[in-house]
C-alpha cells in the first residue's frame, strides 16, 4: 500500500451490510500480505493473511482477495457490526525484503447503526 497523504480514505456502511476495503500494493515481489485492524487507542491487530500462491482466503466473517496482475488486495467484511469500526491497514512483505513489512496508510471504516 502507498501513502495517500494527510487524510485517511473513509468508508461508511450501514450495520448489517457487507464492507469492502481496497488496497493497492507497491512491490510485485511481495509474497505475503496481511490485513490489520486498529481500534482507537490500541495497537494494530492481525485479522487475516494471504500468501501469493493463493487468490482468496476466508476467515470468520472476513475474506481477503488478492489480484497479483493489478497488485490489488481487498478485505471483505460480511454483516458489518459496530465493533468493526476501526482503521484497517493492508501490509505487504516482500520475500527479498527480509523483515521489513510495508504498511499502507489505512482506511477508516465507520459503521452506522
Amino acid at each position, binding site marked *: 500500500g502507498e*501513502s495517500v497523504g494527510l487524510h485517511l480514505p473513509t468508508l461508511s456502511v450501514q450495520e448489517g451490510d457487507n464492507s469492502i476495503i481496497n488496497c493497492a500494493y507497491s512491490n510485485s515481489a511481495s509474497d505475503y500480505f496481511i490485513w490489520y485492524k486498529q481500534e482507537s487507542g490500541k*495497537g*494494530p491487530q492481525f485479522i487475516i493473511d494471504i*500468501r501469493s500462491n493463493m487468490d482468496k482466503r476466508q476467515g470468520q466473517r472476513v475474506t481477503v482477495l488478492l489480484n497479483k496482475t493489478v497488485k490489488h488486495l481487498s478485505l471483505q467484511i460480511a454483516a458489518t457490526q459496530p465493533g468493526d469500526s476501526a482503521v484497517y491497514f493492508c501490509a505487504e512483505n516482500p*520475500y527479498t525484503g527480509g523483515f521489513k513489512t510495508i504498511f*499502507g496508510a489505512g482506511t477508516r471504516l465507520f459503521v452506522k447503526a
Partner: protein
Amino acid sequence: DVKVTQSSRYLVKRTGEKVFLECVQDMDHENMFWYRQDPGLGLRLIYFSYDVKMKEKGDIPEGYSVSREKKERFSLILESASTNQTSMYLCASSFGRAGYEQYFGPGTRLTVT
C-alpha cells in the same frame, strides 16, 4: 496469546530530555520492531532487531537508538527529545523470517514540550 507490552501508555517529556521506551514480548519471537505512527502517514519503521544485540535501521532512524540485550526486550531511546518526536510509538514482534504477522503492543503516546 501473544502479549506485547509497552512500559507507558502516555508520556510527557521536555525538549532535550533523554527518553526510554521499553517493550517486552512473551512469545520468544526473534524479531522486534519500533514504529512511529502519525496521522495520515501510517506506520513508519524506526529500527528493528532480528536477534539479541542485533539491530537494523528502518526508514526514519535519525534521533533514535535502540538496545536489545535480552530476546524478550527491545528498548527505544530518544537521545535528546525534540518536539517533532511527539507521536504514537508502537512496538511489535514477529516469529522467524519474513512471512509472519507482527504482534503489536498498545502504543505509547509521547508528547515532547
